[in-house]
């Protein structure tokens, strides 16, 4: 099923994306002809069991990995056609990324980390927007601290702020709550939710946590490299139900 409403304003479009690892007996089909649209201004979750290809899909969309065939459009740009320079520019200007392991630059303060993508691009931050983001992240007086002086939840909120600060077309979050306790995780998810609601940010999140998925507008389920199901305005229970059904199908 290629289940997505035909939105004219798709932030990202995936067409017939295929990626395999290994060869012969050991061949693994990480992505098997995936086609998917990510609507603008929506909070989308990608779910699936381990090895379902959800991380690979996101890495390909975020210009971190290349697929074997098919194409990925961010806006109108087919990133499978881009060389390293173009990909770098795309990552810098169009994409925000939140990693599971925070991945802040340890030598820089929280504030410097947030401004890093813009500083690298040599751009000035839109001050009003930046103030908004910083206020939303709610770090307050901790902005001048180095990452190792912040808690895990604080670090991840800085990472989210960094992803939002340059107003990218789309933000990818790879298990952003995976390393956090439930309270810190909730804060981060809350933050992502608000960025969608208040600023119309497009967010795609890979997760295996039904609680996290419940914060989103739409959940796409992957199994064996294929999109197998999807939910709109999901609740925790609905998500669990689909996951259980999928677990029964795959022995």
């Amino acid at each position, binding site marked *: 099923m290629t289940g997505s409403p035909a939105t004219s304003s798709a932030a990202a479009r995936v067409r017939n994306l295929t990626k395999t690892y290994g060869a012969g007996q050991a061949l693994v089909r990480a992505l098997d002809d995936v086609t998917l649209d990510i609507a603008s201004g929506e909070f989308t979750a990608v779910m699936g069991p381990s090895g379902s290809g959800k991380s690979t899909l996101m890495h390909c969309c975020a210009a971190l*990995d290349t697929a074997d065939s098919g194409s990925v459009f961010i806006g109108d740009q087919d990133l499978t056609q881009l060389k390293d320079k173009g990909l*770098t520019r795309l990552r810098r200007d169009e994409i925000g*990324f939140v990693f599971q392991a925070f*991945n802040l630059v340890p*030598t820089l303060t929280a504030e410097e980390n947030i401004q890093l993508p813009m500083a690298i691009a040599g751009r000035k931050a839109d001050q009003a927007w930046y103030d908004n983001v910083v206020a939303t992240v709610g770090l307050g007086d901790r902005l001048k601290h180095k990452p190792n002086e912040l808690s895990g939840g604080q670090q991840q909120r800085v990472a989210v702020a960094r992803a939002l600060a340059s107003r990218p077309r789309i933000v990818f979050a790879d298990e952003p709550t995976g390393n956090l306790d439930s309270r810190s995780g909730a804060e981060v998810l809350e933050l992502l939710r608000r960025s969608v609601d208040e600023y119309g940010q497009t967010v795609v999140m890979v997760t295996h946590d039904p609680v996290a998925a419940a914060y989103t507008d739409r959940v796409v389920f992957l199994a064996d490299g294929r999109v197998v199901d999807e939910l709109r305005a999901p609740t925790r229970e609905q998500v669990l139900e689909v996951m259980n059904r999928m677990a029964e199908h795959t022995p």
Partner: protein
Amino acid sequence: MIRAALKSLLGRKVRLVMSTFAIVLGVAFVAGSLIFSDTLSRSFTALFASTVGDVVVRPVGGTTADGAPSTVTIPADVLDDLREVPGAARVDGNVNAFGVFVVSADGKVVSGFGPPAIGGNWSDAPAGHGLEGLAITAGHEPHGPDEVVLDERTAERAGYEVGDRVDIIPSTAAEPSEGGGLPTHLTPTLVGIAGFPSGGSLNGATYAAFDTPTAQKLFLGGQDAYTDVWVTAADGVSQAQLRDDVAPLLPDGVEAVTGDDAADEAASDLLQAISFITTFLLIFAGISLVVGAFLIVNTFSILVAQRSRELALLRALGASKRQVLWSVQLEAFVLGVLGATLGLGLGVLLAMAIRALFANFGLDLSGQPLIFASRTFLASYVVGILVTMAAAWLPARRTARIAPVQALRDDVALPESSLQRRLWWGLGLTVAGLVVLALGLFSDLPHGGWQTGGGVLAILLGVAAMSPVISRPFLALARAVYARVFGTIGNLAGQNALRNPRRTTATASALMIGLTLACTMAIVGDSAKASVDRSIEENFVGDFVVSNVIGTAFTPAIGDQMEKVQGVEHVVRERFQTGERDGDRQGVSAVDPGDVDPLELDVSDGDPADYADGSVLLQRSWAEDEGLEVGDDLELDMPAGKRTYGVAGIVEDNPVVFAPVLMTLRDFADAGFPDSDNVLILFTDDSPGIQDRLDAVVADLPVVTVKDQGEFAQEQREPIDQFVLIIFALLGLALVIAVLGIVNTLALSVIERTREVGLLRAIGVSRVQLRTMITLESVVIAVLGAILGVVLGTGFGIALMYAVRDQGLEVISVPLTQLVVFLVLSVVIGVLAAIFPARRAARLDVLRAIATE
């Protein structure tokens, strides 16, 4: 445990190769210098064995300063007496003279800087112990005034074959050529080639042999005498026995020595003269090992830090502290063995290179295979392994402090010793080094050289220990400047350099050491040149200096000719040679009393008028050292026997006087020194064309040149330049090690920060920006090392020059341009060192980099 250690060793090949490189170079220097000096000494001993007879009869005092035969000769009738000795199988007289230059077919003098140009009579006498000496290998022996034999090498180098006319300049020939002109050229026919059929070499000396009457005519003014005599022992007669039989028959002033003694003596003189090369190489071996040790400490620190989780796991699995520590030491041991082995191989190449270099300078050792003494192997391995293991000890010791529980944590930080403590240690070491250095430089304690070297080493290590603290302001400043100039990328680079100041500064220290020494040498060289310039400017008298390029003496006929040149008002002749005083060599020079004034010698004690035959003038510094005053007697052993001179006056030190004892030309000749000039100083009317007319006199003598003040100064500066250049070349190797150190540290840092690099790429840092970042970090390290090195080196250089300021080097000159060049060079070094690590970082697969733990 051992398997685990070896496995981890193999897993890190590139890093190992780089850290081994320092060991390889250090060991190569050690091995190379040992192999070369062994080869040299074997070659000399073998060589001289074939250049002496069983018993050598020679004038007492033997030879003059440059090894030339003294003017005392052995009359022919002594030989007849010797032939009566029952143990003597045969007696052969030799005539030898130095400064007999062979000019090649294309007009160049065949010679080297050290080895002499020998002329003499042909003799087929066997060398000691029945060794076959020089023998004719082609053609026949020389007969009559127009035939000559050359040694193989010389004939080959000069491009002559049997039957050719050979151009020979007998610059010290006693007999003026016909018409009283200069005995400039001989053009005998080459009738034979001499070689060592059973091995041996002249070590680069040139040899031209005539028949005995011709040689006597040319070199001994025609007297029927010899410069030395070989007595060959009959069968069953030992050298010592023969010597004792011969000795009673000899006239006064002539002695007999066994061939073995004579060979040893000759060999050891020469060996001593070039032993500085071995010392030199060993010093550089020491430098590269110290620099290398820094590199190893650093590499192992990083490796251990990266592996701390793995080591903690080993601890959690039940390995004891000791086992963990020794697993690291085992790696160091393997590395040391590897480095020593490669170093030994490189050392052989180095020895061969030095041998080739020496052949270039005229000291030909190609006939002698390289000598591998067991001590060379032993020294190489001991040095290589010990240095590696000792350097790895510090980081290895820290592993023992890793708690097993850390295996379970995400990021393990190795416990670091406090910087505070390091600062105090370093400070203590530096102060101790300063004290020792001061003692070495400014006190009269023995072994000043060791104290100076030890002090310098202690200061270098002390500063290296302190550098994480004292470099902080520099690193902070560098960060600020980078941030301003290069924006965020610059800021990141600066922060990275600050992140682990220990590592940054340890890496910089390797460069610091190399540049410290380079700066010291630059200052010493520059000061020496400035001193030469100043003393020449202050003391150069007359208008032209005539001297022999190779420094040997030349025939007085040149001075005679110069006096007749139109425009020449006065010619001052200066001579110098070496006699002996209380068994030690003592340089003496000769100037006529009438020339004391023109030379502007300042006779401060005594009366210049008292300076005449039988008396001497002494240089002030020497006279004070020796406690001699006007009116004292000075006793010297001269080639012609013991002589006593009255001290007529004390002369202020003046570089125009080449030796501290100044005597008249007549006394000089009487003492048994050859009748030849070393330097002529010409006073002219400076009329146009004067130099051309003077040049014309020596046009046929390529070895003798006429120079004005500027040219003379240039000539004096040249050896200093060459010396400094050689040292720079050797220090270049220390710099190569330092560069490798930076490469190593950066490469390891990149590996360590893989995830961070991946992150930067993921948020849009381009490859170019990443490369820039790593290059900037590298440049900070290099510039830090350079600044420390230049500061220390300038300090050492000035201290050193200050310490020797009363030894004729009173000018302290700091070559600012050169120091700036060093700093610029360090930037280049930084950029170059970053190439490989930067490329590696830029090529990292972004996704995999992020996924890295």
